[in-house]
């Protein structure tokens, strides 16, 4: 199981736990989920069809943006995904996020760490420019150390050159 899967599972658990706490989310989570429920899960709180869930964030909105080789410039597609992230983060103010910057394996470890930091910051700056409080965002770079695809050609490299917005529930982390 790779780290992303683990992180997603953890968030699913957190999301579900959050929805069982009426004081924190005012019971709105379940209702909102039902309204958007088109998937197999039929709007189950915390599932990908619940718009307040981290699963919805990562699957329906998209938790990651991709980059061209050796760049940290956001693409129009990346900006569209980040606009969705902004809306979600502004709606779900109890969540914080760590933006993880990654690189493909073409490059030295040290340079790729710095390149990943550039990518993570490009995302953070965009989110902040659209109104997400910077206090809710942190950045980290893994360089080329945590690929999600393991082949050594562009098909995999393209998916590894990414910045991933990983949510955490602020009550759990602060």
């Amino acid at each position, binding site marked *: *199981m*790779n*780290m992303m899967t683990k992180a997603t599972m953890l968030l699913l658990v957190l999301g579900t736990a959050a929805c069982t706490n009426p004081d924190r989310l005012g019971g709105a989570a379940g209702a909102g989920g039902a309204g958007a429920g088109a998937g197999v899960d039929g709007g189950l709180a915390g599932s990908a069809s619940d718009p307040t869930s981290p699963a919805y964030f990562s699957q329906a909105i998209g938790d990651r943006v991709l980059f061209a080789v050796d760049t*940290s410039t956001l693409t129009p597609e990346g900006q569209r995904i980040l606009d969705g992230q902004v809306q979600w983060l502004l709606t779900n103010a109890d969540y914080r996020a760590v933006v993880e910057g990654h690189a493909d*394996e*073409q*490059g*030295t*470890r*040290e*340079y790729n*760490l*710095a*390149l990943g*930091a*550039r*990518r*993570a*910051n*490009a995302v*953070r*700056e965009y989110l902040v420019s659209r109104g997400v409080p910077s206090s809710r965002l*942190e*950045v*980290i*770079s*893994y360089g080329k*150390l*945590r*690929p*999600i*695809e*393991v*082949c*050594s050609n562009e098909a995999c490299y393209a998916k590894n050159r990414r910045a991933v917005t990983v949510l955490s529930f602020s009550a759990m982390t602060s």
Partner: protein
Amino acid sequence: MRIRVNLTMRNEAKMMKRLLTLLVALILAGPVAAQSGPLRLTITDGVIEPITFAVPTFQAENAEATQVANDLNRLVAQDLSGTGLFREIPANAFISQVSSFSQPVQFADWRAINAQALVIGAVAVNSGQLTVKFRLYDVFSGQELGGGLQFAGTTDGWRRMGHKVADAVYSRITGEGGYFDSRVVYVAESGPKDNRQMRLGIMDFDGANVQYLTDSSSIVLAPRFSPNGDRVLYTSYESGFPRINVLNVATVGRQQLQTAPGEMAFSPRFSRDGGSVIYSLSNGGNTDIFRSDLSSGQYIRLTSAPSIETAPSLSPDGSQIVFESDRSGTQQLYIMSANGGEARRISFGEGRYGTPVWSPRGDLVAFTKQNAGRFHIGVMRTDGSEERLLTASFLDEGPTWSPNGRVIMFSRETQGESGTTSLYSVDISGRNLKAVPVQGGASDPSWGPLQP
């Protein structure tokens, strides 16, 4: 003359310190001008005909010493042959047998089989204490090269004594320092490419005596030895974010380096006096080079540019820093004063240059080069001239110098989903490329100093 050296070594499992005492003594006053002997190999960039040597099995002076005498004999031969500068004459070609350490050498018998150098040794073991003595002869002139030397320590430390014998032989014949009695700290890797487990390992230069300095619960990167080998700097994700740790090799105690404020700190190296650390710090997506004093925590900024500045390495005299920067649009190598300021670019060839490391002699910079989809380890003079690529593969990176500046160790990663990393070494002439035999994946080597 007697020199007593105390060394601490760490037992991985029990974290037990044991004391290895090496006693080094000149057993007979040999010729004082050892370095002026006629048998001399000058290491140059040209083609070198290896010096032939014979190492008859070391004399076991008592029954307990038989096994270790054999082991030491093989280790000394392996160290010397492994350089590519020496070639062993196999024992089955010997005409003479050596039955006593003190008997006169029959030089004609060794000349007849074309052995240029002859190493004879004797070993004794007394209740866990090992004594090794050896002599080196120039066969063709019939002279001893240097005086006899004796090392004493515990039997557990036998490999170190073998390396010391080989270092002395190497040094007397080449006139340069050796590198066999040295250690390498590195990142030990295991697991699949998308879930790599990484921990710090330390080993002898030849891959023996591996011990682990951290567990693999968090990512560790780029360990760097202090100048005298007592401490290791490395980047750790232990706190959740990349920070620099300082680890004491003997006690394995570690603490986080107090850096300038920033989101990520990485790519550290000790100053030449071991008292401060130069490193990269990332803030707001921009990476620059800083220096922090280890005791006071005071820091200064050495670069200030919107580009990526990383991988700093100091010149041997501590006055200059070579580093990489993409200020020109691609990664290139630059040199600036150790206090920062104006930098001059030294790399101008095709492709991208990174991870520069200043040689211990001060004359060369080793680097990683990417060009046309291939990676190379190379060296250039500090003014950028005489660039020489030593290797080529899918992915070579992270060079580190042997203590005598003759050999470079680096990591090589193989292609594809089953790709793994391993350590290789190569002479700065480009000859003698070979894998360092380490169990499991290994990367980011840092070659420490010759041990005292």
